[in-house]
C-alpha cells in the first residue's frame, strides 16, 4: 500500500462536509439508532469531530496503522466516545457500528469519481482496513473497561469478606474463613499490617479455624506476615490450627517455631491479654475480696 499515492487523504479532506451529512443521515435512518438517548446535534458533532481528526491524521500521511503514535488523537477520541456511549447505555456493538457505518457514505462517494476501477478498488480497500481496525479498537476498549470493573469488584469482595476486628484495645483479630488462595492471602495480610499501624495495636491473633486446608504458599504468606509484624514491633499469635493442618505443616517442612500458636481463639486472646499485662477476673471473686 503506497500511502503517498493514496487518494484517501485528499478525498476525505475535500469532501468532509458531504461525508458527515450522508453519514449522519444514514445513522439516523438506521435500525441501530435510538432516538431520545442521543441528540441529533450530539451525533452530528461527534461525526464532524471524528472526520476532522481522521482527515488531519490521514493528511500527515505517515501511516495508516491505527496503533501507531500518529493516530493517538483518533484513539483518544474513540476512547472518550466509547466511555460516553457506554454511560448512556449503548452496547459495544453500537459503538463499533458508529465507525463501521462510515464506510457506506465513503464508498458511495468514491464510486462517484471518474477514477479507474483499480484506483477506486484500492482506495476502498485502504478505507476498509483502516475503519475495521478503528472499529475493532472500540470493542477492545470496552473489554478493557469491563475487566477493570470486575477486578476492582473482586478486590472489594476480598476486603469485605475478611474484616480485621479489635478484640481489645491493642489486640486485633483476623478470623480467616474459607479456602485461601495466594492472592487473597497477600491482600488480607497487607490489610492486617496496615490495621496494626492504624490502630497502634501490638498483637494480632490470626485465627484459621475456618480454613479447611493450608498449602505451602499460603503457609509461607502467613509466616511472612508474622515476620513482617515482628519487624514492625508487633506480635502475632496463630490460633485454630486443626490436627490435619498441623500434619500438613509438618509434612511440608514448614517451621513454625518463631510463632506462638494456640488451639483456640479464646486461648489466644487470653495469651494476648497476658502479654499486655492484663487479666480477666470474676466479678464475684472481686467483690468477695472487697468485702
Amino acid at each position: 500500500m503506497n500511502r503517498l499515492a493514496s487518494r484517501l487523504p485528499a478525498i476525505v479532506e475535500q469532501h468532509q462536509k458531504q461525508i458527515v451529512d450522508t453519514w449522519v443521515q444514514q445513522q439516523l435512518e438506521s435500525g441501530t439508532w435510538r432516538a431520545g438517548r442521543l441528540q441529533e446535534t450530539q451525533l452530528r458533532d461527534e461525526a464532524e469531530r471524528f472526520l476532522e481528526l481522521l482527515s488531519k491524521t490521514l493528511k500527515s500521511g505517515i501511516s495508516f496503522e491505527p496503533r501507531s503514535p500518529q493516530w493517538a488523537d483518533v484513539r483518544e477520541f474513540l476512547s472518550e466516545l466509547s466511555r460516553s456511549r457506554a454511560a448512556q447505555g449503548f452496547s459495544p456493538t453500537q459503538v463499533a457500528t458508529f465507525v463501521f457505518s462510515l464506510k457506506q457514505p465513503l464508498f458511495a462517494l468514491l464510486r462517484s469519481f471518474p477514477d479507474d476501477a483499480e484506483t477506486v478498488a484500492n482506495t476502498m480497500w485502504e478505507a476498509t482496513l483502516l475503519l475495521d481496525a478503528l472499529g475493532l479498537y472500540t470493542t477492545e476498549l470496552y473489554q478493557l473497561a469491563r475487566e477493570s470493573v470486575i477486578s476492582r469488584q473482586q478486590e472489594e469482595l476480598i476486603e469485605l469478606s475478611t474484616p480485621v476486628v479489635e478484640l481489645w484495645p491493642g489486640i486485633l483479630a483476623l478470623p480467616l474463613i474459607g479456602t485461601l488462595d495466594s492472592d487473597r492471602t497477600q491482600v488480607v495480610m497487607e490489610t492486617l499490617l496496615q490495621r496494626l499501624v492504624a490502630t497502634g495495636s501490638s498483637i494480632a491473633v490470626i485465627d484459621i479455624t475456618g480454613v479447611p486446608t493450608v498449602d505451602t504458599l499460603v503457609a509461607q504468606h502467613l509466616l511472612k506476615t508474622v515476620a513482617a509484624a515482628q519487624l514492625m514491633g508487633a506480635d502475632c499469635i496463630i490460633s485454630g490450627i486443626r490436627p490435619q493442618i498441623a500434619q500438613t505443616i509438618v509434612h511440608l517442612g514448614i517451621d513454625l517455631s518463631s510463632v506462638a500458636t494456640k488451639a483456640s481463639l479464646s486461648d489466644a486472646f487470653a495469651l494476648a491479654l497476658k502479654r499486655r499485662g492484663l487479666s480477666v477476673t470474676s466479678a464475684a471473686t472481686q467483690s468477695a475480696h472487697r468485702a
Partner: protein
Amino acid sequence: MDRVPILRLGDCLLVTVQVDMHDQLAMTLQDDLTNKIVDTRARGVLIDISALEMVDSFIGRMLGNIAAMSRILDARTVVVGMQPAVAITLVELGLSLPGIRTALNVDAGLALLRTMLARSDFGGHAD
C-alpha cells in the same frame, strides 16, 4: 546540606529520618547522634522511620550501627514507625535487623525504652 533533626525528649533522643537518605547524610547522622548522646547523657534513642518508603541493606546497616554505637555509650535504641510495605520487603530480602528492637510508634517506643532501661538498670544483661 541538610541534617537529620535530633530532638530531646527527657533523657531520650528522638531522631526522625526523612525520605531519601544518601550516604553523606547517614554518616553525618551517626556523628551527630553519638555526640549528642554523650552531650545530653541520653539513655534512650528513638529512631522514627515512618517517613521512609524504603529500607535497603545500607539503611539496615546504618540502623544497626546506630544501635550498636548507642549501646556502647550506654543508651538503648528502638526503631519505630516501620511501614508495612517496608516490613514485607525486608522479610522478602531476608533482612532481620538483628539487635534492633522495634515498636509501632513513638509512644510504644518510649514505653519499650522504659522497660529496657529498667531491666538493664536492675541487673539484666540481655538487651
